[in-house]
């Protein structure tokens, strides 16, 4: 059944990470990405891995969720690993015809793979612990200064909210239309590609007609509720930076400092 699909990846909970200010979460996720990319050696990267592991532990997101988020990037990782192993010059460990795998190649491949995995798992943590609405809200408020450059920040956020609101409704509607056309003998399972594409018309047209009708009615309802864009608008929920946000920021700052320190003196530890 189509309606069983859950929207977004939000995994409700009440951990400190769940309760953080979405703005802070977005900023810290960005800081974490920076941390991953400036890490120049294995020790620095290890800090990133441990840090993320701790975050997941605190957030109480189950392990299978992390694995699920990583599954789509596996082909990319295999692909880049193969390229790295084959094309990085250095001391060969294996050679066949013109193909040659080097120690340095393997090192780079592992390093890059870990970095990509951390990147995906890190951003997933943000979407796992933040509801789509809070995420939209956070992005809108972070982008507020961009309004000065005539960027329609409020409008974009509003569109995002309405899309989130209507996705379940439209999924349900699609379900209904498919059933109704099947009841009239529509055949959607057999035939060639062209035939299958044609079989979609009786579903797509009613769906579009209905979406436009809904948009029309919603616009009218919004007008009746005095909506006139972002100007002069207040918000019921005020986002506030709490002590927990400061603590989390400090933790990320500490991690970042550790990575930078390891970049500078890391060679020293590695060589001794």
């Amino acid at each position, binding site marked *: *059944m189509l309606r*069983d699909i859950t929207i977004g990846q939000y995994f409700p909970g009440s951990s400190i990470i769940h309760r953080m200010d979405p703005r802070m979460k977005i900023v810290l996720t960005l800081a974490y990405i920076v941390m991953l990319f400036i890490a120049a050696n294995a020790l620095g990267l290890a800090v990133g891995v441990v840090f993320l592991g701790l975050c997941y532990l605190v957030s109480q997101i189950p392990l299978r969720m992390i694995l699920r988020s990583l599954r789509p990037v596996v082909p990319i990782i295999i692909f880049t690993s193969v390229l790295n192993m084959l094309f990085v010059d250095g001391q060969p460990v294996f050679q066949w015809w013109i193909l040659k795998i080097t120690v340095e190649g393997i090192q780079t491949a592992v390093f890059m793979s870990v970095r990509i995995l951390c990147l995906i798992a890190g951003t997933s943590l943000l979407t796992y612990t933040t509801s789509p609405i809070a995420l939209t809200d956070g992005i809108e408020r972070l982008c507020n200064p961009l309004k000065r450059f005539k960027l329609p920040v409020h409008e974009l956020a509003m569109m995002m909210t309405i899309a989130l609101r209507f996705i379940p409704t439209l999924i349900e*509607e699609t379900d*209904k*239309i498919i*059933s*109704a*056309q*099947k*009841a*009239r*003998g*529509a*055949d959607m399972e057999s035939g060639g590609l062209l035939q299958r594409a044609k079989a979609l*018309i*009786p579903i797509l*047209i*009613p769906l579009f*007609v*209905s979406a436009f009708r809904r948009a029309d009615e919603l616009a009218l309802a919004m007008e009746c509720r005095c909506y006139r864009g972002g100007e002069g608008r207040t918000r019921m929920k005020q986002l506030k930076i709490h002590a927990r946000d400061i603590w989390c920021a400090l933790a990320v700052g500490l991690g970042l400092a550790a990575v930078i320190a390891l970049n500078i003196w890391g060679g020293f530890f590695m060589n001794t």
Partner: protein
Amino acid sequence: MLAIKTEQLTYTYSQGTPFEKVAVDHVDLEIEQGEFVGVIGHTGSGKSTLIQHFNGLLKPTSGRVLIEGTDIWGEGVNIRDYRFKVGLVFQYPEYQLFEETVYKDIAFGPTNMGLTPGQVDDRVREAARFVGLNDYQLQKSPFELSGGQKRRVAIAGVLAMNPDILILDEPTAGLDPRGRDQILGQIKQYHRTRKNTILLVSHSMEDIARYAHKVLVLNHAGVAMYDDVDKVFSRAQEITSIGLSVPQVTRIFMGLRNRGFGVSDSVYTLDYATRELLELLGKGEKGNA
């Protein structure tokens, strides 16, 4: 002959997930050929799920569905044949219209059946006649019509498949009294002409009382009652206790009986109520005859 028979029919939504819900629970039901059945039950009683089993849109989790004696999920049975044999009109069916003209939209079902263009044409025109659409309207875009007209086009789209069993899920929802009477009148006329089996799902007890011969009452994913209209509405107390109502005239007669008057306990239409009271008050047909 039995038009519809179910044996221990059970359907569970989202089986194996935390959202698991039994919507139809071990239902045994037998509906005779040619019956006009009103189906009542509040939202969530399993009505919609049950009727989607009759044309094979849903496959039972367990149990069997037999249409005219054949198990529709049995071996060697083409389920699509039963989509045509059992016509299902969904709620707000006008939202499924998609063709450029009313004619083409009504022709969608018959064309899917693989009929010749000549046969399709006959079917379309006959179905259009039943719901009162003229030739001029057949050439219009369905999106230009009024709400009530669109509804009738969508119903014609199912009638054109010439189903042995016709199921309508709240065909008059959201229509005004005039639109409602028109559509229900046409369905009644269709039944009279075709003598096929009709299942009419409705929230309006007055409509059920006026058009149906039998009533199927669903409650908690199962059948609470299935009997003739007068017998069902004479159990007003039971019906009320499961959160459904009986027609207002039935309630008036209950009120009269509670005051000790010996009026009938199975009055469910205005015509019957008027006759009964006129007779009791000495103005009935007996006096005139």
